[in-house]
């Protein structure tokens, strides 16, 4: 060992970076443990578990063509369409993504739901009265992503166009809020554990 290499090794030892045998002492973390820890952290971050329960409930309710609620005295219908992302807080598989127009209602997605992978992200089509909106939501932040609005009536007038667009975004917000409110009413009520959870589990188990 040259003088310089020896000095470097000694300095690293003095800083506590290496042991007497020159090894770093840092154990390689098991990738599975790392992945499980990340999945669990993501489940609790921002109370994503509540958002996942909410999206699962809306998914089950949306299978029927009935309106889920009324917003501004107009019925609100919801359909999940396109890509859906499911996540678990632990287990062999922590994430599953399914793509296809009716993928959210498919047997594969229900198979995953049955195995405790809940909806973490989904693309929703909301029909409010006669107008249709689309938006992608995620369970942690419920931010609007890739949102599509109905055609504007004030096209051409820049100022009016902007206000109309903002009003439509605001309406989309009221629709999403109404869905969350419906879910929360059920979630904190006495029927959640007794009726709704068994209903959800039965829906996950339905053969498609």
């Amino acid at each position, binding site marked *: 060992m040259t003088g310089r290499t020896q000095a470097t090794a000694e300095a690293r030892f003095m800083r506590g970076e290496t042991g007497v045998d020159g090894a770093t002492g840092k154990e390689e973390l098991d990738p599975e443990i790392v992945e499980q820890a990340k999945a669990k952290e993501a489940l609790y971050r921002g109370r994503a*578990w509540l958002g996942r*329960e909410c999206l699962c409930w809306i998914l089950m309710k949306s299978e029927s063509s009935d309106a889920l609620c009324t917003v501004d005295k107009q019925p609100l219908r919801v359909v999940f369409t396109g890509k859906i992302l499911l996540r678990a807080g632990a287990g062999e598989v922590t994430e599953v993504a399914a793509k296809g127009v009716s993928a959210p209602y498919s047997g594969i997605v229900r198979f995953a739901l049955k195995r405790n992978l809940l909806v973490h992200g989904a693309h929703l089509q909301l029909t409010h009265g006669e107008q249709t909106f689309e938006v992608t939501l995620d369970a942690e932040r419920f931010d609007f992503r890739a949102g599509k609005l109905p055609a504007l009536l004030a096209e051409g007038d820049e100022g009016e166009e902007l206000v109309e667009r*903002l009003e439509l975004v605001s309406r989309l917000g009221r629709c999403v809020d109404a869905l969350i409110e419906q879910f929360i009413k059920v979630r904190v009520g006495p029927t959640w554990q007794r009726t709704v959870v068994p209903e959800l589990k039965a829906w996950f188990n339905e053969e498609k």
Partner: protein
Amino acid sequence: MPIRKGTVSCSRFRIEGTVPKDVKKWLTKTLKQGAFEPIDPKGDEDRAAGFVELEDDRATNFSAGALFEGMYALFAWRVEKIRMPASTIRAELGEWAKKFEEKNGRNPGRKEKADQKDLIRKGLRSKTPPVSSVSDLSYELTSGELLVWASSTGIVEEVQAVLESGLGVRLIPRVPASFVSPSVLDSLGPTPALFEASGVKS
């Protein structure tokens, strides 16, 4: 501009706290306090951020005509950054180290290298133009809902913190948890039957 056209991507907040009657004064004061100031070319900062007018990302007057459109207050958050490519700094430092060795017959020390790196950074900084990005914001006066039209979580959180401290209110994200009272929320946890495999036990 995403607020004007294209698909909608935004984070939604509800304002919690007292909103004064004179909303214009309240908002303008905060926006002016946090107004954007460009990076000082002679300074050391590599990043600057602040509020600008929606229509002109160099204007920070926030006159009523520029700030309000119908029942909405519209403004933007501008971020300016100087990004110096690490590979360029590394290459220039390597070249200097080679010359240093030829001249002095030894490798440069750690401090000499750090000093030279600082010099290279300063030299490059004056030659690198800043890159700026603008995220729109809209505040609906009637409902008190604030939208941050940005996809980056970092930007959303930065704007949230600046507005909360400037306006003296809390910005509550529109997530399911915010629809439950804090006392009820504390008593809630993941439903065991739905999260069995996630280690959640009844």
